[in-house]
């Protein structure tokens, strides 16, 4: 018997074309061996919670008799016409979408600069983006409250300079979006930067030499080759954005209720775990459905010519 470690390491060098037909000394394909630790972790650490949540989702509302009852009542309650929880879904998904798109636009020039323009400063600039992340996002968001609030840094500062006070931006839906852009920027920026680093300079040179303008190079060469980074950045941003709650609570004054907050209320003040589980499950289904749909349209393997 080979030790697990050895088996694991053997993954590294196995040809990726590893022929399935061939009777290899180890019948497990390299990919599966590489995936094994993650699969094991997820089976042990995620499957059970998943099953639990699913079981709660089908348990009697407001009860704790999981695995002893089965009912669709929670889902029925969610889809009931009088229930407005769908607006929370819509808000969350819209915010997630807007955050994803805006952050892609905000982060791209920076990622580009980090890869192509900042030269030896790139390392320093990129850690500048890291430092603030050591502070919990709540505290950072609260920093914005201190900035925007009446008599805060902006308003107080302007008044101190003898000007009229600052604008009223806190506790609005716009403030929530702003907060989300702020909090999720790194989740877009870092994968994107890594993705852009994957573009061989030669290819950009070649494309330019063939007469391609900046836009053409971007669309035909840089974008597809940086796609793994961009897509993964967008995926993370979208998923996290769909589960966002703190931005609404701290900056937005709950001017919008996100689905995450509905789930939280179900688990806390309502003590309705089954309903909370059903909402959570629905969120997972919707988000994964959307994300996987988009991913399947933008198949990385195909874009990168791996298949």
């Amino acid at each position: 018997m080979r030790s697990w470690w050895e088996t694991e390491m053997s993954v590294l060098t196995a040809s990726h074309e590893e022929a399935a037909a061939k009777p290899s000394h180890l019948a497990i394909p390299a990919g599966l061996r590489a995936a094994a630790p993650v699969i094991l972790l997820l089976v042990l650490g995620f499957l059970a919670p998943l099953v639990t949540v699913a079981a709660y989702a089908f348990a009697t509302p407001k009860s704790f008799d999981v695995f002893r009852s089965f009912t669709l009542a929670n889902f029925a309650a969610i889809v009931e016409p009088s229930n407005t929880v769908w607006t929370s879904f819509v808000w969350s998904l819209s915010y997630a979408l807007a955050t994803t798109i805006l952050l892609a636009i905000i982060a791209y020039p920076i990622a580009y600069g980090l890869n192509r323009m900042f030269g030896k400063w790139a390392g320093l600039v990129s850690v500048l983006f890291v430092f603030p992340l050591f502070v919990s996002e709540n505290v950072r968001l609260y920093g914005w409250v201190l900035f925007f609030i009446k008599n805060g840094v902006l308003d107080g500062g302007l008044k101190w300079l003898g000007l009229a006070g600052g604008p009223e931006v806190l506790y609005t839906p716009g403030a929530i979006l702003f907060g989300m852009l702020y909090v999720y920027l790194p989740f877009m920026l870092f994968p994107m930067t890594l993705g852009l680093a994957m573009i061989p300079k030669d290819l950009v040179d070649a494309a330019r030499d063939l007469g391609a303008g900046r836009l053409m190079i971007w669309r035909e060469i840089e974008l597809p080759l940086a796609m793994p980074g961009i897509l993964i950045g967008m995926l993370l941003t979208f998923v996290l954005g769909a589960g966002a709650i703190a931005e609404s609570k701290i900056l937005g004054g709950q001017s919008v209720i996100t689905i995450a907050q509905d789930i939280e209320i179900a688990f806390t003040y309502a003590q309705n775990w089954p309903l909370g589980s059903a909402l959570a499950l629905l969120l997972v289904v919707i988000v994964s459905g959307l994300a996987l749909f988009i991913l399947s349209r933008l198949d990385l393997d195909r874009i990168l010519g791996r298949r």
Partner: protein
Amino acid sequence: METRSHIQLRALVKVWTAFVVFALYLPVVCGALAGLSKGRYFGFPIRIFSTEWWEKTVASLEIQTLVQNSLLIALIVTLVSVFFAFFGALAFARYDWKGRRLFQKAILLPIFFPQPVLGLALLLWFNALGINPSWQTAVIAHLVWIVPVVTLVIAIQVYSFDPTLEEAARDLGASRWFILKEITLPILWPGIWSGALFAFLLSWGNFPLSLYTAGVDSTIPKWLYSKMVAGYSPMVPALGTMSTLSAATLLLAGGLVITLLRRRRRDV
């Protein structure tokens, strides 16, 4: 090759980056100001400055324990998740295997899950198994959520990895371990580094999973959260500022050391 429009673009990108960095630090600076004002409630310009909250924070044994817990969890999560995710990323982006498509999708599921629900469900699971929640179970909970993220991050780089390099190394007689050490890891290093950074930050800053799975062990985000919601004092922003500063000091010092070492080792 520099053209005028390129120079303009470069200037534009620089200005934009500077603006975003500025925005990134603005709330941190506001927090720093709040931590240095005597009053519990903030007003600008600050009426009376005081280092009282800083002193209290530094002196607090409780906070020392929190920092220790958070650091310990984050470090372990970083190491373990990078290890898992490194291989996960190979399976995700490099090898052609039957279950790949499924794997690529399944690995996303934990990320799609709302973290508080995941945390609570994990707590139920740990208790069903008779495991007392503690910082160790928090590590596992973090891993469930963070490993997939890190896998994705590392996969970005694996997508552009040239497998013939490993073939060549193997052909030159290198063992798997040797190839890993000499070829794969160094080349994938930027991705691994990014992944490690993600792992650390996601664990360090995680509240919802820690809330449910750390048992009696508290972490900085748990403490900050409870302080923020009830019992706010400027120790909250003071601790935030301290975190930023210590991270900055550590990273810059580390970066400097690495740069110097590298410069000494290689000149061309």
